[in-house]
């Protein structure tokens, strides 16, 4: 599926400042690769970029289209095609148990309750979560929660999956599990991450800095570029160096 950003800028008005703060600056991109990573420092605009793709943030100027649908005018059609996974699964899972949450995802698309139940079970089974379906989401481990959030989003079979730093709250083992799960997905995947291993799995990686794309290309080059960017200007006072 083709996602097109056409001269997109996102600006934020801040109290007590005359000029708006620029989160994203005149971005034009065409996202067609199956695996796309976005890396960059905190505050570089990664989350804003990802939120544009699902209509959670509207561009201040320019426009974003997903398979021809404008993310502002046809937000509903966009959201049907673009699933979104947040960093913290607890803010994403809105129902008390996993089964209810997956069924909630299916509510709009599947009207028949019995059919919905069956689909929810198969979505949970796909990630090995069926045994935990009726447990409170607060009793699940972080890794199980993240898988559940993924299962709930994938239950409606979106064409594109956007993940905002999906591995940040996970331990090493669950990170590995998540990497393999993402690798096995049939969807187009666009994710932001601080996990350079995960970034290396991508086909194309964008490096963001201060709202601008400063590199766009192969993962290894992108990671090298990002490292150079991060270490430049990092001069600790002599006494505090370890």
């Amino acid at each position: 599926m083709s996602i097109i950003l056409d001269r997109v800028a996102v600006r934020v008005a801040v109290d007590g400042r005359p000029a708006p703060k620029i989160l994203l600056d005149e971005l034009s991109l065409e996202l067609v690769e199956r695996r796309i990573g976005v890396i960059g420092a905190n505050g570089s605009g990664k989350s804003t970029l990802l939120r544009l793709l699902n209509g959670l943030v509207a561009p201040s100027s320019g426009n974003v289209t997903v398979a021809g649908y404008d993310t502002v005018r046809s937000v509903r059609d966009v959201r049907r095609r673009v699933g979104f996974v947040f960093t913290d699964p607890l803010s994403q899972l809105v129902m008390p148990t996993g089964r209810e949450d997956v069924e909630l995802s299916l509510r709009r698309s599947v009207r028949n309750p019995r059919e919905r139940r069956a689909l929810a079970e198969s979505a949970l089974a796909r990630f090995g979560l069926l045994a935990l379906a009726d447990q409170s989401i607060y009793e699940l481990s972080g890794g199980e929660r993240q898988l559940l959030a993924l299962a709930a989003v994938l239950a409606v079979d979106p064409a594109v999956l956007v993940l905002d730093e999906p591995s940040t709250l996970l331990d090493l083992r669950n990170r590995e599990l998540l990497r393999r799960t993402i690798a096995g997905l049939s969807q187009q995947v666009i994710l932001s991450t601080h996990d350079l291993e995960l970034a290396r799995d991508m086909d194309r990686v964008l490096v963001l800095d201060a709202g601008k794309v400063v590199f766009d290309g192969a993962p290894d080059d992108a990671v090298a570029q990002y490292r150079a960017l991060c270490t430049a200007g990092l001069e600790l006072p002599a006494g505090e160096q370890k």
Partner: protein
Amino acid sequence: MTQTGNVVPEKVTTAKKRRASWNATDLGLIAVFAALVAGSALIAAVPVGGLGVPITVQTLAVMLTGLALGPGRAFSAVGLYVLLGLAGLPIFSGGRSGLGILAGPSAGYIIGFPLAAAAVGWLAAVVLRRTAGRSGKIRAVLLFAAAMVSSIIFVHALGILGMMVNAKLSLPAAFLADLAYYPGDVIKNVLAVTIALSLHRAFPDLLLRRVRTAPAGPASAHP
């Protein structure tokens, strides 16, 4: 948490239409504030001051919901709490619940909660709008007055009425019984106002300036 402000709305497409009904963020706020009132009624009381007299923070949470969300959403949040408590969830103070509450002497107070939250919410929106740019002290005093007026008219008056209807107390007797709640109420309203002012500083667009850019509500700019 960098809820610094709102994305400049250069493309306001369906803003008018959206204003009529609540969006997903409003639903989230209503549900979470209903949970806050429930949680505040369930947790152990907070000891206040040197004497350590315990007070429950339930009525504090009710007034704070009004001060934070404004009339419509606050009424819905506190109303939802009352409705689910009456339906049987053990979320009234002391873990009580059920329709039986309506027969008890505290029925009037519980019915008064959503009305008081709506009233203080309406007054708070007016005060905050009119005093924009004025000193914090004036705002605090006016908000405290709003909270006191709302709780006297709705919580205390209905509380007295409830005791008269359910416990068949005479008006003077019910009035005297209700007086016992005033000192705690004054303290809680002072607290509610200071907390509400801090809350509005942390989230400037919570009640005022509810300008929307995307259907998701205020665009949060997580870096």
